[in-house]
């Protein structure tokens, strides 16, 4: 069995700053694997280990995602081999284009049984690439998966929706997206990182030009509400009473 896990590379949201004009400043933010895609990689690695399957990682994005530290980080997490399309033609694609680019990349992987995606990317969090990719490949898709197993070529998945848990079954091949609850990402050890450097990775340029169906007109931090900024120190007389009064007044 072969499992493919798809991940997105994004600027680390912990280091995004707001510039004076309200625009987002990414200059201090490193390229990282989108947070919930790490959970997807772990869920895929655990499923691969328990089914004696091989695990392939794949990603499409701008040229800068071809970063040796980042690739090692992915390969140190139970991923056997990596395929990437790293090309500025693939920067900021929408879900439809991303699915097209991933489908092209998948032609390099001779056969696969299951494609695993994360719950949503840190930037758009659109939850659409899994579905669009399945549509492109004409495969069934199961989203919001919190637990999954494979038996005799059939996937059994538990999906956690807003108010119910659904248990579903579908024959492979299929696409699933897993929520962060599916698996907690491992912390790779020194040995994992060293051996990751010896694993194969295939990085190439885009094979097509992609146009987005969504035009971005503007991006900036939302305006903050004006706040009073009244600060009380506990050592002041009647500090707690004043704070309690402020709560009551607000309610």
């Amino acid at each position, binding site marked *: 069995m072969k499992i493919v896990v798809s991940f997105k590379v994004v600027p680390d*949201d912990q280091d995004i700053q707001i510039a004076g004009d309200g625009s*987002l400043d990414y200059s201090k933010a490193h390229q990282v694997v989108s947070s919930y895609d790490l959970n997807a990689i772990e869920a895929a690695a655990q499923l691969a280990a328990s089914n004696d399957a091989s695990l392939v990682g794949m990603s499409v994005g701008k040229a800068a995602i071809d970063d040796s530290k980042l690739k090692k980080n992915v390969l140190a997490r139970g991923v056997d081999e990596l395929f990437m399309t790293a090309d500025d033609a693939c920067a900021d694609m929408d*879900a*439809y*284009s991303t*699915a097209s680019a991933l489908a092209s990349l998948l032609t390099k992987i001779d056969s696969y049984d299951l494609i695993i995606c994360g719950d*949503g990317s*840190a*930037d*758009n*969090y*659109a*939850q*659409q690439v*899994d*579905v*669009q990719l399945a*549509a492109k490949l004409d495969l*069934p*898709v199961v989203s*919001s998966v919190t637990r999954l197993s494979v038996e005799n070529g059939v996937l*059994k998945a538990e*999906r*956690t929706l*807003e*108010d*119910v*848990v*659904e*248990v*579903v*079954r*579908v024959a492979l091949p299929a696409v699933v997206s897993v929520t962060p609850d599916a698996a907690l990402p491992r912390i790779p050890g020194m040995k994992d990182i060293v051996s990751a450097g010896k694993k194969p990775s295939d990085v190439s340029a885009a094979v097509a030009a992609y146009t*987005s*169906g*969504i*035009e*971005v*007109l*503007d*991006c*900036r*931090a*939302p305006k*903050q*509400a004006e706040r*009073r*900024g*009244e*600060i*009380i*120190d*506990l050592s002041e007389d009647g500090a*707690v009473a004043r*704070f*309690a009064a*402020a*709560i009551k007044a*607000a*309610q």
Partner: protein
Amino acid sequence: MKALVIIKGREAAAKLCSAARKNADEVVLVVIGDTPLPGAVADKTLHIALPTGSVYDDAADTIKAIYDAETPDFVYLEATRSLKVITGKLAAHANTSAIVDVLELADDVASNRYFGGIGQRSLKATGAKIYTISVSDLPDGAASGTDLVEEASWVAPEKPLELVETRPIEKSGTDLFKAETVISVGRGFAEEAQLELAYALRDKLGAGLGCTRPLTEGVDWLPRDIYIGVTGLQLAPTTYIAIGISGQMQHMVGCNRATTLLAINKDKNAPIFKQCDVGLIGDIKEVLPALIEAL
């Protein structure tokens, strides 16, 4: 202009239809499965009966057929996990991408959150206009229409999911979207036992309780569905009290639409003191018992 509105919950029907009515003279509503049919919120309601053993998502092929037959100028879908799957399949069918979780929409310019609300983007669909909107981001609206209901004929998917079992989820208490007062706890709580102080304050105030991400994904003291911030809940309560929360942007995007924001933190340099209406500098071990007493 013609709108197609697709909903899962009944509350969404009136809200989404009334939002659609602002931009369309004809509104067609699609209701899937056993959701109670809302009265008179659209010009026509199409009901899709879900065959036994089918999941909501597998209504996608029927919805694609409805989309082709109705040729709407735009589509609104309620942002739920199942309808997001239908959204993706419909957008793929229309050779485009949907604009999801729209906060505002005027003159075909939609805004939504970027990086969990750190930014907000203004977006325009260059192809088919397909949007998802969360009910919690919409005001109540008076929808108008008729009671006309038609049954849609089921288009069976080629590769359906087989529904084996459905279990209701037990919610962990108050619906934080509906709570007028929300107290929220962060890393300032050094040990799990200290949460008792927060529970006592919550009960005293009749408030809802939320937390920052580390308290649910780091130490697992609290359920994930009450986590407030980027990729978690984004609330706009009347009163928000942040306790032991430093005020990182990644949390603040989940609460900065509160009418009044109060904060308790022992670090006088915590960034939250620059973003609150009233702040109290002090250790939660001393502050909370005294505060509960004073309220």
